[in-house]
């Protein structure tokens, strides 16, 4: 389990408790967080679950795969060094307290 805090572009902050193995995208959409769309359902095919991960915690995440890096080229908002796709980040105890900012637009 991990508590993950999503901060939407509006400043709205929501903390959700995610079971191990759930993707951050699925955790966000299942908990009514609007700043993530996840149109493709989590198959790394649409770039609408773009998020900015707290930079100090990047090392706690598995690195982005080639597929994710390629898909990040398609994000609608500005791509930054801490840009990730939330469908590719899986919750685990290592991510406890992670802060994730969401962009103003996903499409």
């Amino acid at each position: 389990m991990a508590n993950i805090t999503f901060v939407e572009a509006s400043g709205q902050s929501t903390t959700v408790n995610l079971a191990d193995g759930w993707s951050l995208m699925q955790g966000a959409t299942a908990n009514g967080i609007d700043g993530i769309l996840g149109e493709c359902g989590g198959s790394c095919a649409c770039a609408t679950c773009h998020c900015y991960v707290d930079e100090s915690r990047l090392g706690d995440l598995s690195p982005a795969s080639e597929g994710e890096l390629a898909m990040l080229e398609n994000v609608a908002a500005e791509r930054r060094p801490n840009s990730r796709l939330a469908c590719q980040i899986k919750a685990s105890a290592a991510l406890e307290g992670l802060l994730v900012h969401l962009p103003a637009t996903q499409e």
Partner: protein
Amino acid sequence: MFSFDPYSPAVDADPFPYYKHLRDVAPCFWSPEAQMWVLSRYTDIVTALNDWETYSSASGNLMTELPGRAGATLGSSDPPKHDRMRALIQHAFMKRNLLALEEPIRAIAQQVFGQLKGVKQFDFKEVSSQFTVKVLMAALGLPMGDEAIVDEQTVRDNAVLMVQSDARTRAKGPEHIAAYNWMQEYASKVIAMRKAEPRNDLISNFAMAEIDGDRLDDREVLLTTTTLIMAGVESMGGFMMMFAYNLATFDEARKAVVANPELLPDAIEESLRFNTSAQRFRRRLMKDVTLHGQTMKTGDFVCLAYGSGNRDERQYPNPDAYDISRKPRGHLGFGGGVHACLGTAIARLAVKIAFDEFHKVVPEYHRVADQLPWMPSSTFRSPLVLELAV
């Protein structure tokens, strides 16, 4: 004694009371009839979809699998093989790459639904299946017009038949296998045509696609093409039937989307939640899993009942209401995780355009029959006939 038999006509017709019992009383249920476990709660299904290492698709993802198919298609393979194949073809299915199809799809919709002008009663299946086959032919690049090698109706009939199973024998019958074999032969002819003279269409693209010198082998191209035709005709056609069924049943929802077509996307999402045509898919366990006091063993098959997770009151309040203002985020109408439907963007686009044009010709309609004949399928659910009257 409760039983859940995904091959029974009663489940084809109305699975929802069974699902409710499964979720409340037996959320990890062994079905002797199906010879598999059934997971019915939203969170359990999402957990399984996220964990492909445990819940493998490599032994097939259809509840009743077709011979020789498992392991060679996107839906029936696991990463890393799955990711390689998906990388080769998913580009074409991204929303921004479908924009060029918008006008052709609208032209098809206008032509097909235009036939209903002045008609008082019709079977929606007639128009929805014409529309889906034409859209699919345009999107995949199946030969049409002078180039056509068979007529549309034949493609349609075989695609519909190959996903069904025999209600009595609980297996694919000879007619279903024959349809599947026909589709493979058809696909192989199309692939040969496109390889000889590649064009800018999906089949040409993925038959020739290359990443770092890696290409799909002939069997992968063939079975993936066959699956795309099946998924396109059956899943999109089935979903359109369910959407029309909902709008014909719930007057207020229909009136709202007819008055304001911008509400169509919300109504489509709610239909995907409320009664998606993709009701149940299966996985196979790669290790023992204990859930709700039951231990499922390595090698056991597990049914993920998307249609039930979508009605789980633990996730969606008042789940049995069709409410187009719900915005049902995270629904399982397209599955989820690495195997989430490849065609989400084209399905959403095509169905929105279809109903926009359909409603311009037929803004008022209702169901003629109360009881409908439902397709015999352990995986998909949609009516075989949907008579509508204006």
